[in-house]
């Protein structure tokens, strides 16, 4: 199988998997659970009283209501008609209110009475009012009492149906936020587990902590906004608290991230912003838990800060054209890997800001907060997670590629081009590495000369001698060429006897070469072992060997009649 085909296998497998998964879903016809009974929206026919005063009845979806103060009560009554549904219930979302439901004056449901008057922040509640078997023809009255100032700006929608159907309907409407919110939350929590290790390796990785914090805020916000914590948690206040806490988390974590990501003055500005954000959050939490101002009532300062905090970033991006504020990246992949999460973050922040602004507009101007969605923030959250994944993959690519070119570069940097042996750079590196190593080693200094001429050897002779050295010494030996005819052999864990054998072999091979090529190579060497003086460094062992080399060199010179200078 050739390379291209092998590389295609995972792609083919992925496509097959997606097709198989798709076929299963298609075979299921309808992804949503089958509805056993119809679900009806109760929009018309309500009699409504506001603080015991009757007000004009309209369809609930079109009705504008007064912003309630604490303890203001809306009372809605409706005669239940139509075909009986087994296991029937009426479902609606109650916003920070106490809810009581009566069927023909008999209390059938009560929710949130403990929050009213306790001073604690009331939550957003999912109300499933169960209706007994004989509910047809009876009058349902729902009393909604605001537990917080401006708790709600609209009533309903109220849905009548089978309780199982209503529950499944609630979940199926929230499939995507549920899926993606869960993913983002766990994605962040996973990152938290790895962050201490990352920070130990590289202090700059603290930015990953803030990045994970932002992802956590995005995931939590998504789950809380769509009331999904209400499914898993008994206390409805938790959902509301997490929703507002996550909104506060977004600017704080972004400032933290930019503090590490940006350079120079901008980084200092974001350091200040991060401090302010966390101090503000601390103050908000203190005020919340002491029930002075609830977190749901104190969003305005945060929105204002958000706007201010975006300015330096926008300005710095503008300056990018002229001045580069980011750390200079030589590798474009590295640069992309660093920029993409920042862009993802900005998109998420922008989208969330639009959604929050729309929510405020819907609540205060359109007076229909129940219909507000955070679809843009959800998309932004997904893009944020994807941008991080792109960054991870690019970092991976960059790492693997640089690993390859590092190996090549290392080889080229440490190789003597003429002989293919190691060069001085490698020798210096080996000397440095052996400073702390406890492994025994030996160093042999070798000097190549030319009989009679005492001058330079030809290139051919140098190359041939390099081969002789390779053959004479064990394979594990590191043979370096320092200068023209100056060589050093470093061998780990070698006995003295083995060294003598290698030296003998060297002499023999040189003699053989001289005989064969009628050449006049003259070799001198000196060896030293690390065990001879362990207290000294590798460079001293080298000098010891070099000293011994010169003993031999002078002896050879005397033999040749070359005068030796004192």
């Amino acid at each position, binding site marked *: 199988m050739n390379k291209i085909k092998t590389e295609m296998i*995972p792609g083919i497998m992925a496509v097959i998997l997606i097709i198989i998964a798709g076929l299963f879903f298609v075979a299921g016809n309808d*992804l949503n659970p089958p509805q056993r009974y119809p679900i009806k929206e109760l929009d018309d026919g309500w009699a409504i009283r506001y603080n015991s005063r009757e007000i004009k009845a309209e369809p609930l979806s079109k009705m504008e209501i007064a912003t309630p103060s604490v303890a203001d009560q809306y009372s809605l009554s409706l005669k239940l008609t139509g075909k009986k549904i087994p296991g029937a219930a009426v479902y609606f979302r109650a916003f920070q209110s106490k809810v009581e439901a009566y069927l023909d004056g008999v209390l059938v449901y009560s929710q949130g009475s403990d929050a009213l008057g306790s001073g604690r922040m009331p939550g957003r509640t999912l109300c499933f009012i169960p209706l007994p078997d004989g509910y047809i023809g009876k009058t349902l009255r729902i009393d909604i009492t605001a537990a917080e100032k401006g708790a709600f700006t609209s009533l309903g929608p109220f849905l009548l149906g089978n309780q199982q159907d209503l529950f499944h309907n609630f979940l199926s409407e929230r499939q995507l936020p*549920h899926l993606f919110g869960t993913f983002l939350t766990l994605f962040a929590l996973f990152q938290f587990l790895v962050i201490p290790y990352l920070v130990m390796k590289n202090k700059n990785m603290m930015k990953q902590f803030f990045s994970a914090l932002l992802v956590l805020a995005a995931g939590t916000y998504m789950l809380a906004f769509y009331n999904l914590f209400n499914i898993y948690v008994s206390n409805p206040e938790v959902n509301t608290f997490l929703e507002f806490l996550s909104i506060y988390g977004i600017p704080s974590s972004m400032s933290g991230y930019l503090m590490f990501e940006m350079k120079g003055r901008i980084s200092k500005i974001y350091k200040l912003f991060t401090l302010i954000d966390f101090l503000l959050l601390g103050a908000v939490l203190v005020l919340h838990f002491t029930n002075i101002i609830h977190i749901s009532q104190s969003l305005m300062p945060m929105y204002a800060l958000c706007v201010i905090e975006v300015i330096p970033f926008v300005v710095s991006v503008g300056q990018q054209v002229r001045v580069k504020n980011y750390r200079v990246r030589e590798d474009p992949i590295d640069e992309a890997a660093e920029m993409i999460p920042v862009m993802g973050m900005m998109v998420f922040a922008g989208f969330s800001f639009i959604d929050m602004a729309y929510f405020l507009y819907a609540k205060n101007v359109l007076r229909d907060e129940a219909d507000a969605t955070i679809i843009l923030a959800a998309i932004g959250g997904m893009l944020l997670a*994807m941008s991080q994944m792109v960054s991870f993959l690019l970092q991976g690519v960059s790492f693997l590629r640089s690993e390859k070119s590092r190996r090549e570069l290392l080889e080229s940097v440490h190789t003597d081009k003429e002989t293919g042996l190691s060069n001085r750079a490698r020798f210096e590196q080996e000397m440095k590495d052996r400073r702390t190593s406890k492994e025994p080693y030996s160093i042999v200094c070798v000097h190549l000369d030319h009989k009679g001429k005492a001058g330079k050897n030809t290139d051919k002779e140098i190359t041939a001698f390099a081969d002789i050295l390779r053959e004479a010494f064990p394979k594990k030996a590191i043979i370096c060429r320092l200068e023209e005819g100056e060589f050093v052999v470093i061998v780990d864990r070698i006995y003295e006897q083995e060294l003598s054998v290698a030296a003998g072999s060297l002499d023999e091979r040189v003699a053989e070469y001289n005989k064969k090529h009628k050449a006049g190579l003259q070799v001198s060497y000196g060896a030293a072992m690390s065990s001879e003086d362990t207290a000294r460094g590798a460079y001293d062992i080298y000098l010891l060997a070099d000293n011994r080399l010169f003993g031999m060199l002078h002896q050879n010179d005397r033999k040749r009649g070359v005068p030796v200078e004192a």
Partner: protein
Amino acid sequence: MKHSFRDTLITVFFTVVMAVIVAATLVVIFRYSPEEKIITLEEGWTVQLEDGEELRDVKIKDLPDRVEGDLKRGEKLVLSIGLPEETAGYSTPTIFESSHHNIAKAYLDDKLIFSEFDGDIEKAGFISRKDNYIDLSGVKPGDEFRLEYVLTETVTEPEMEAPKFGNYLDLQRSFLIDNVYFLFAGLFLIVFGLFFMIVSLILQPLFPEIIGQLTSSAISMIFGVYIITSTRVSPIFFHSGHTGDVEYVAFYLIAPFMYYLFSQIHEVKLKKLYSGLSILTAVLVVIFIALHFADVVHMNTTLPLYYVLITVMTIVLLVYDARDIKERKYSANNVIQMAGPTLFCIAFICCITYSLFKLVVLRSVVNDYVFMTIFTTGCLAFALSRLMVYFIYLSETDQRREEFNALTHKVYHDALTDAFNRNSYAEAIRDMNEGNENYGILSIRMEGLSNIVNVKGHGKSDEWLRSFGKAIVINTPDNGGAFRTDADTFAIIVRDNERGPLEHVVENLNRAMRVMDYNEPEIPHVITCGIAYSDEGNRSNAAKIAELADSRRTRT
């Protein structure tokens, strides 16, 4: 970068603290208590078998022991119970039943209140585990509740949990809370795999090396799909009559995909072994799946064979892992990549051991959370190790860049003197030839270096070279560069032909020589220098200008 033991301890400490904070936060947040009590109907059942035999006062957990022999496809199993007094007063009375391989009907005082299909098992398709919420509106204590199961598979023992009685929302939410770990882990693994797969497919044309990411993305998705379908949390996201098929297909796909991943991680020798095993298991799995969909043998029957297959896979992996780690064949990168699959395989071995223990020692087939908890944790460890790999790449970026810079420095510089090396000199000469700038070249030779080598050894000559190299580099003007052109010769090239700066360098070098003479009187520090400028010859032939500078070398 090397870290001390103290650093490692601090890291472990903070990781544990982080894990405790995360776990504690989740435990504090995810607390649910039903509004009204949930009653488990464990005891007091009357069970009627296909052959008419009636078992009285049966506990659900004892049912496998009380029923002798196999239960065949198409056989009926009827369970009935009188509802206890405590079932009174519930606003939405519901029974939650969870069982395997059957279709059910439920009766309340002989009145049919619930039915899955019309009782025709041929239309039912393959059914694995399923959960039903049976509405008991209008129920009174003492009413007889009857469950009629028609088995859709031949099984050795009936697999069912004790039905639970309570309000619908309490039952549904309790079920979700009990399974929240599987639900969240499953969803996470699906989206994690899906996103990585999408991103990999998009980036793949630009960066072919990330194609390998697709396999682990696919495995993540398979894990997620298996977890949410086998724990039956999937119906809150999608409803399909084929959930059982999806569950088993996902489970069966794990082995071939995992082998394929091993083959991608390993190099050369083991690659072939794992590729072979991947193809072999893929063929077997395709046969199992084909037999399942042809209704010849369903995948629940071939499960023991598949367990053998996956156990062999695990043993092969662990044996090779242990051998390779012992022989230090793995690179650090490989170790991290293999950590995920290895942790998953260890988790899987634990799962199988537990299942055997449960079956042989405890004699129980009742569903519990132990198997799935270990399995899911193994899957999450797999995903976490993928993330770890990328985080490690991320954290090493700065270190890698520094190392790169150091290496690049070595490419252009002489290791002994730190002046530019011969290659850089050749490049500079080329640049001068091609450029339009004027330049000046100072040629310097260290006289008597070879003599010093001969008499004092390489140690002393290296020392002199180092000090001299330093002096040259320090004295080189800003618009120039210092090069070591040979063992004992250097050159300084300046991008200007203005007379003066190079002459000044020569003066400074002489001064430096005098200092060296003072410090080391036993070594004769002698240099010869020559200067030539581009306007003294052909500017486009820098080598000639350099030769001119060489020829002008005189002792200063």
